[in-house]
């Protein structure tokens, strides 16, 4: 059954942050917020037929990469104030269609193909705030207002506790700037060995400012203050999506809403007709719906995709709870996710020939895929032995699994280790 509405899931945040625990919770919501935008962007991105709409592909991909930066920046601030992420727990994985967590709930974030409707949703997500808005972590109207609420909390707690007590996180938990690439902006390390605790507060605020600037732009400006070598200034996310909307690029000096650069060609026909799930709460998840309506093969494919998605969230969870180097592996998993999402985009919806299935980005409990896995293993391979990598959340049992085969010899262990079965092994087993 469908999960309750996001707003009902958690006790509401207070309007103002006054304790460290409340700050941790707000920063966890910030990470959830950044992460919840990514599937909606990826749905549009991977609906683009390969070889077409390169400009739109570049625009959306650049935003996704910077959302990953925002996730990382929020994660570094959370870890700096001694908090821990909760990215793959059931409460924090969004159910689409969803509202932005703890927002004023004016609109639904949906998983749509690239279309005028999806571009409109993107514009709403990234909409710049009004000047002099009250900071608000609960019931905010725009993302800037939400981050202003966190900034206020940081200022308050910094005065109340002092920077050494507030920023008590471990330096080795911080994701380093060398791990980020492919987009504008930089990872800001908040806590470093041997630094002055007073600098930590400055850096934490800088990190939050970068998130808001990249999303909304500098005040009264289309651009976000970053530059890409050989390309020049970078429009904020809102204005990058406005370029899609208006089919025209912004150039330096342009006023908001009035891009005057080169035309941006967009062919909305060269897009896979991914099925749009209803905007109101559906009684079932897409996987359950296909399973219960006589399409178990589709349900299985979605389960495979969602298992990969959960693997990725698991890696990100590790990244922001003490193993920052795992971010490299998350990138590999994002490629796997891309290939699977693109495959799903092409599969005709057997229940309605106008559509294709497309990815559904659903939560999968660690034990939920196990029965499927066990059954597949029993039928597909004769007595396949299992192995896993030290520190990984999955086990492998297929000799052709590239992930399983690439385990560093020193990390290789026999058995299942009580872990979830690897999605690729599951897929290979058919």
């Amino acid at each position, binding site marked *: 059954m469908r999960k309750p509405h996001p707003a009902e899931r958690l006790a509401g945040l207070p309007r103002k942050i006054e304790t460290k625990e409340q700050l941790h919770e707000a920063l966890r919501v910030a990470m959830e917020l950044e992460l919840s935008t990514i599937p909606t962007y990826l749905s549009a991105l991977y609906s683009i037929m390969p070889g077409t709409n*390169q400009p739109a592909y*570049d625009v959306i991909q*650049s935003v996704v*990469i910077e959302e990953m930066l925002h996730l990382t920046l929020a994660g570094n601030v959370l870890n700096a104030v001694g908090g821990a992420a909760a990215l793959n727990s059931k409460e924090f994985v969004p159910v689409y269609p969803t509202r932005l967590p703890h927002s004023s709930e004016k609109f639904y974030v949906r998983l749509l193909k690239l279309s005028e409707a999806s571009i409109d949703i993107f514009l709403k997500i990234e909409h710049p705030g009004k000047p002099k808005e009250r900071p608000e972590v609960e019931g905010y109207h725009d993302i800037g207002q939400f981050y202003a609420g966190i900034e206020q909390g940081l200022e308050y707690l910094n005065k109340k506790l002092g920077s050494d007590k507030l920023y008590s996180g471990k330096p080795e938990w911080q994701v*380093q700037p*060398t*791990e980020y*690439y*492919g*987009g*504008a902006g930089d990872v800001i390390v908040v806590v470093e060995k041997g630094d002055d605790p007073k600098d930590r507060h400055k850096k934490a605020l800088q990190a939050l400012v970068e998130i808001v600037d990249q999303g909304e732009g500098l005040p009264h400006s289309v651009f976000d203050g970053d530059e*890409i*070598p*050989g*390309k020049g200034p970078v429009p904020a996310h809102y204005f990058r999506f406005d370029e899609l909307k208006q089919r025209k690029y912004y150039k330096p000096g342009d006023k908001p809403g009035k891009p005057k650069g080169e035309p941006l060609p967009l062919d909305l026909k060269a897009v896979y007709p991914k099925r749009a799930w209803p905007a109101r709460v559906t009684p079932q998840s897409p996987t359950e719906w296909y399973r219960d309506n006589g399409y178990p093969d589709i349900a299985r494919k979605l389960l495979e995709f969602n298992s990969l998605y959960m693997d990725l969230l698991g890696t990100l969870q590790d990244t922001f709870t003490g193993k920052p180097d795992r971010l*490299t592996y998350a*990138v590999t998993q994002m*490629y796997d996710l891309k290939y699977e999402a693109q495959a799903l985009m092409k599969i005709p919806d057997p229940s309605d020939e106008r559509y294709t299935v497309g990815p559904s980005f659903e939560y999968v409990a660690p034990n939920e895929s196990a029965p499927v896995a066990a059954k597949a293993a029993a039928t597909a391979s004769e007595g396949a032995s299992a192995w896993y990598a030290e520190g990984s959340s999955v086990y492998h049992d297929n*000799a*052709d699994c*590239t992930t399983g*085969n*690439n385990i*560093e*010899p020193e990390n290789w262990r026999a058995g299942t280790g009580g872990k979830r079965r690897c999605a690729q092994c599951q897929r290979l087993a058919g």
Partner: protein
Amino acid sequence: MPDYDVVIVGGGIAGAMVAKAIVEKSGTPSPKILVLEAGTNQGWTYDGYLDYLDHFKTATVKGPNSPYPANPAAPSTTVFDIAVPTKPTDYYVQKGPLPFGSGYERALGGTTLHWLGTCLRMLPTDFKLNSTYGQGIDWPIDYYADDLKTKYERAERAIGVSGDKDEQYYPGLEPKSAAFKKYWGDYDYPMKKIPSSYLDQRLSKWVDGMTVESATGEPVSLKVSSTPQGRNSTPRPGSDFTPQGAVGAFETGQRCEGNSACVPICPVQAKYNAMKTWAEIDRKAPGSVTIQPQSVAYLVNTHSDTGEVTGVTYKRYENPEDPSKYTIETATGRLYVIAAHAIETAKLLLASNVANSSGQVGRNLMDHASAITWGLLPENIGAYRGPGSTSGIPAFRDGTFRRVHAAFRVEIGNWGWTWPAFSPNSDVNRMVDTYNMFGPELRNGLAEMLPRQFRIAWEPEQLPEPTNRVTIDEDYKDDLGNFKPVIHYDLSDYTKEALYVALQVSDKLFQRAAVQSYTTYSPAIDPGYFVYKGRPIAVNGAGHLVGTHRMGTTRHNSVVDKWQRTWDHKNLFLAGCGNFSTLGTSNPTLTLAALSLWLGDTIADELANGGGP
């Protein structure tokens, strides 16, 4: 007054590194540099580069040049045209007795468009082959006395090399030894190593510690060593290095994505190509460099009294498809650099009758004459994934055996039998055509075999030999009326003996790793086939063309001095692998880059001191 401060012939890595150093050392105002590029500049825009990619995807046969459209106005050789005798349509005129097996690319970016990216340094003894082992000649430069260490570091930063110093197991320079410390210092590469492939890891289990006896009786201990590469990975912690992305799309290609297409084209430009350096110069000193494509230099003019170069005359064509339409123009500068590739530079000098008082221009052509062995491993080692090669076995890169036979590098390939057998396409054809396989049987057959494919290359150096040479001949011209290279080429016993030894090591390695050999050489299929001491061997070109205008200690034995200035013309410099005195066992591009940056410094100093006419 000349039109430019410096005229550079060639828009590849040699010219780019020279220009980079000139611009960086000169500061403002920046000298004015003209670059004459024979080929097109299609890849300079990102869309143009994506067109290369499309061209590659639709090519039926995928060789190193296949992404880059054939250009009749500035032709080059494809590896499929290698044979003796040559067909009239071929670009190389091969006079044998063995065919010369290596080509290059003529377009902006040069051969770095299709190189693999291997960035090995030469060893100190490589510069002193004659005084150490009584073979070949010495270079006029020394690894320590001329501080090549710092020059290599600069080149590794300019290219963007990923590597791990502590995994470099070179003979005589083993990690933790005093020699290692002296060779590397505290330095490490700007980016962390590209992860070793699964094959590398398995192979190192089987091979590390295996010992064979050298021809001079010393034990040689084999060890798999990760290869430094000119492709982007994660910068070292604390480093201020920023990986350079694609030209025109800087956010793309800041890390290697494992697309497994480095040769012939990296789809995201995570692999270095020289256009990145031209773009970097353009960002840092806009307007300092003018790149003029589709301009084929064919004559270097000199002053009859002073011998100084007065201009470079070139044919500028509008349309590569129609070489009959061109204009003749002359570029003038205070100083000139010819950086047109080992074969093209030699050709241009010979055609102009300049810089050749030693008679060495075009001679001493060298390559790594590579033998490949291949077979099936008993287990799935994940062939066809990652960059083309991520490791090698450096054990035979140096040793007293160099008195008797050539040193060789061993390159471990990650892409199955692609090089020796055109796999996987040929396997599909064979299973379908010969064995009538289809459906699940075909799929299973391929899935069972392809991931187990293993190949390894044995790449000995050649000595400088005057008879291995590039010449020109009035009877052989291309469509633009320029000379085609006429090539005389053979292998001496010094190299053949190394191949013979290498294949014996290969036999032992195959036995140790339980590789079932599929290696066959045949005169019908292999242009580089010969029999040595009763053993059939076939060699391939490695694309490492060096030596055709070598540097040396006197004007009698060489074309340029250690500063890479021609002995005969004081305002004419040569850049590129043609300057190499000997080849050594490293892929030559990194050394080329280090020497070219050094040359750029020299030129910047000369410009500052009012050098040139």
